[in-house]
């Protein structure tokens, strides 16, 4: 494969495997994005929006208690949880929203798994005055009703997807089905650095704000670069976001943490780049490492963190993995709950279950570093939105009792 010619490829990965009906739409999107990217005023508009509507720059928090607890590196936490809507997803969504405005479209659609990207998109649509439809697997709607509630309250239509495994990947398929019907007035706000070109490039570009800030902040607050940077990897957008700030620094080791679910050898996980269950494939419009069987059929995946529970992974990360520029590991559900618990108790921070994966690996490795070294964990989102999942996972008796009572009240 000729890397120098093929656009939208990162080494062997990426591309745009799209139905012909979307060819024009993608052509226009590529042009619009290219122009926007080249236009300093656009980035300026984006930064100003993120600085006044969301809370950018998000802080970099020195976690002194975790540092001394592990007796190694100084922990710094990049606080994407403080974004409006509670996660890094806002960075991407608001950026695409500005692009939609530029393209003159009036309607946005999006897939969502955990609901986080759906809420972010519904929020952006409300702010920018777009119609909005969110596709969400039936299973996920059941699990993440609070997010559905907010999306609807923000004026979005949430469509329950009943095909396939009724989760994220099926919602993506369904969103594409909407798009091939309504491409004229509609933009599909893809939620992560996956999908057909130019989405990986576009989402990575918007998310790069995380790494740009983090780099400046660590130099400012710690006086030198960190030794390691940790991020969880679902589709890979928060990881790409922060990694881009340090890719040029060969002294900074970048670590992506995937969902180890019930164990990397259990068959119940969502690890594409760690473990042996994934292989190269083409689906959902792009080529990457997929969790699939020998026929090329996608497997069921599992993670306590809905946002990591996905069959594919960013083609950009697949490339960095292949080239050895990013190291990958995985964290099990159990390790994640323990890391979350410790982080709440020691730092008063509630990382999302997704983000807690990054904490797990940092906890394992902090002792390898000296106290004059720093590590950064990208806290991609806040966990308080996940109370139903978290309280359930902690098997909290008072919470169950509370829900039982509320349920009985509503049954009456």
């Amino acid at each position, binding site marked *: *494969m000729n890397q120098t010619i093929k656009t939208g490829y990162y080494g062997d990965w990426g*591309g*745009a*495997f*799209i*139905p*012909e*009906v*979307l*060819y*024009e*739409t993608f052509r226009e999107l590529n042009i619009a994005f290219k122009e926007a990217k080249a236009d300093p005023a656009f980035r300026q508009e984006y930064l100003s929006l993120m600085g006044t509507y969301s809370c950018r720059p998000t802080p970099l928090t020195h976690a002194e208690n975790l540092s001394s607890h592990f007796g190694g590196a100084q922990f710094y936490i990049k606080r994407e949880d403080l974004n409006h809507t509670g996660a890094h997803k806002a960075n991407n969504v608001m950026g695409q929203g500005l692009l939609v405005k530029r393209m003159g479209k009036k309607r946005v659609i999006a897939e969502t798994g955990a609901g986080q990207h759906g809420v972010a998109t519904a929020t952006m649509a409300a702010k920018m005055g777009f119609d909005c439809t969110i596709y969400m697997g039936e299973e996920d709607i059941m699990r993440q009703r609070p997010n559905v509630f907010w999306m609807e309250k923000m004026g979005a239509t949430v469509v329950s997807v009943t*095909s*396939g495994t009724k989760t994220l*990947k099926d919602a993506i*398929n369904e969103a*594409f*089905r909407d798009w*091939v*019907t*309504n*491409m004229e007035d509609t933009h599909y706000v893809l939620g992560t650095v996956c999908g057909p070109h130019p989405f990986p490039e576009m989402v990575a570009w918007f998310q790069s704000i995380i790494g740009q800030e983090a780099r400046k902040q660590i130099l400012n607050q710690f006086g030198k670069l960190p030794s390691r940077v940790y991020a969880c990897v679902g589709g890979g957008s928060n990881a790409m976001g922060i990694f881009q700030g340090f890719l040029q620094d060969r002294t900074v080791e970048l670590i992506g943490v995937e969902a180890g679910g019930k164990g990397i050898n259990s068959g119940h996980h969502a690890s594409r780049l760690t473990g042996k269950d994934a*292989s*190269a*494939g*083409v*689906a*959902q*419009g792009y*080529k990457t490492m*997929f969790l*699939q069987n*020998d*026929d*090329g*059929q*996608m497997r069921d995946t599992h993670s306590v963190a809905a946002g990591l529970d996905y069959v594919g992974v960013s083609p950009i990360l697949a490339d960095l993995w292949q080239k050895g520029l990013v190291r990958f590991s995985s964290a099990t559900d159990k390790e994640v709950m323990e890391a979350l618990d410790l982080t709440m108790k020691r730092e008063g921070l509630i990382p999302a279950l997704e983000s807690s994966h990054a904490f797990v690996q940092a906890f394992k490795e902090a002792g390898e570093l000296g106290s004059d070294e720093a590590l950064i964990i990208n806290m991609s989102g806040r966990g308080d939105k996940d109370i139903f999942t978290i309280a359930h996972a902690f098997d909290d008796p008072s919470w169950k009792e509370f829900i039982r009572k509320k349920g009985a009240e509503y049954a009456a």
Partner: protein
Amino acid sequence: MQLNDHIKKALAAGDNKILLMTHIVLGYPSLEANRQVIKQMVDNGVDLIEMQIPFSEPMADGPVIVKANQDALKNGTTVRECLDFAKEITSEHDIPFLFMTYYNILFKYGVENFFQKSKEIGITGFIIPDLPPEEGEEFFSLTDKYDIAPIMIYAPTSTDERMKELAKFGRGFIYCVARKGVTGKHTDFDTEFNDYMQRCRKSTDLPLAVGFGISRREDVDYLRGRADIAVIGTKTINLVKEQGVDAVGPFIAGLR
């Protein structure tokens, strides 16, 4: 070119002739049912059949076919079984059979292996809705070698220029998607559609197939002169589901 020749001959056989192509999802509701349905189709004059190898992520299909893909996989349908079945079918029936599937099925099988195997079992064409020519370097380098026709797809959103570009890669016929959207919804045949078909015609010498939502004799009649092949997809799947295998023959017979 096997498929080209066949279609040209068939079209030449009558005046104002229109061919019928039907679509089935392998393994749905079962290979045995597929076998019977295909027999009914061939017996009642279907000219070509596209056999969809089920895929877990049928991005470009509508709900009925999505469900059929899913159920076929739930039944345990494998790619190997589909190939074996296809071999049996092509040797039994003397019309062209094509594979319709998504690119990952070929990719995982090994693209060249898949061509070789398909050739071996008598498949004459491939319809791969998620493989634009830009992504098909390897694929398109093999179509002539194995004499398997890559069926290119036109959409109402395709510009004249794009159509001409696609035509360069096409063999056998061009599959003209009648409207935006996924499979299985009815199409309004209106002026816009006529303009679109004229644009298609001007851009290629290949015969034109029209798909998406054809379910009645009127639809087929309307297409005469405008297209060369009418594609019936979702309709027969619903028919088998609702009225059983035996309803297929009379339905097909009634279309022309």
